[in-house]
């Protein structure tokens, strides 16, 4: 099982901060495609992805228990 986290505008569109979903074995880009369709997030591609709090590229495979976070463009400071 995996935990998927949403922030900022994505969180508002999805309507929740996180969800539990089993995406073990999928790549980051497969997860993005699936979630993007599920929640009609047409700008999900602009978000970076973090796996276990480290930025991950689209080819990275998700492992059991990994926490995935979609990171829309940041604007701290």
């Amino acid at each position: 099982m995996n935990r998927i986290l949403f922030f900022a505008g994505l969180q508002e569109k999805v309507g929740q901060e996180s969800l539990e979903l089993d995406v073990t074995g999928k790549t980051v880009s497969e997860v993005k495609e699936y979630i993007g369709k599920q929640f009609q997030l047409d700008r999900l591609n602009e978000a970076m992805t973090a796996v276990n709090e480290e930025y991950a590229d689209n080819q990275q495979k998700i492992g059991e228990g990994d926490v995935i976070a979609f990171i829309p463009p940041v604007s701290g400071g």
Partner: protein
Amino acid sequence: MSKQFWITDHPISIEEVVKLVSRREAGAINTFIGTVREFTYGKRTLHLEYQAYRPMAEKKLEQLGQEIEERWPDTKTAIAHRIGRLEIEDIAVVIAVSTPHRADSYDASRYAIERIKEIVPIWKKENWEDGEAWIGDQKEQKAYPEGSPKKEDMK
């Protein structure tokens, strides 16, 4: 050992951040204070809202501190970033850098704020007179023109 890099939902004490980098070896402490501005190109902000992916943001701030140490040896950095609702003139971020000589403290401080806008997962929601929006573009430029972040942005 107290934290050198943290996210907080309370007002930041500038003095506390500065104290964390103060030391006998330092000849300079540069302090950057990021505040909430009322007008952006004529558009009036009523208040702001910051959100963070807290554990990752603190980790990335720490990483940023390490990057600074590598680039400017003998540097000590502390950074606090506030989240939640902030009013005009409130302090959003405090960066303190101490170095033996002043030039490095300016450079490292500038580097820190630019990097925060690149890699630290903190978002800002503008609440204007006439609406609201999450400000989502790296360094307040266009968001990922190729549709996805570049490899070097993900370090």
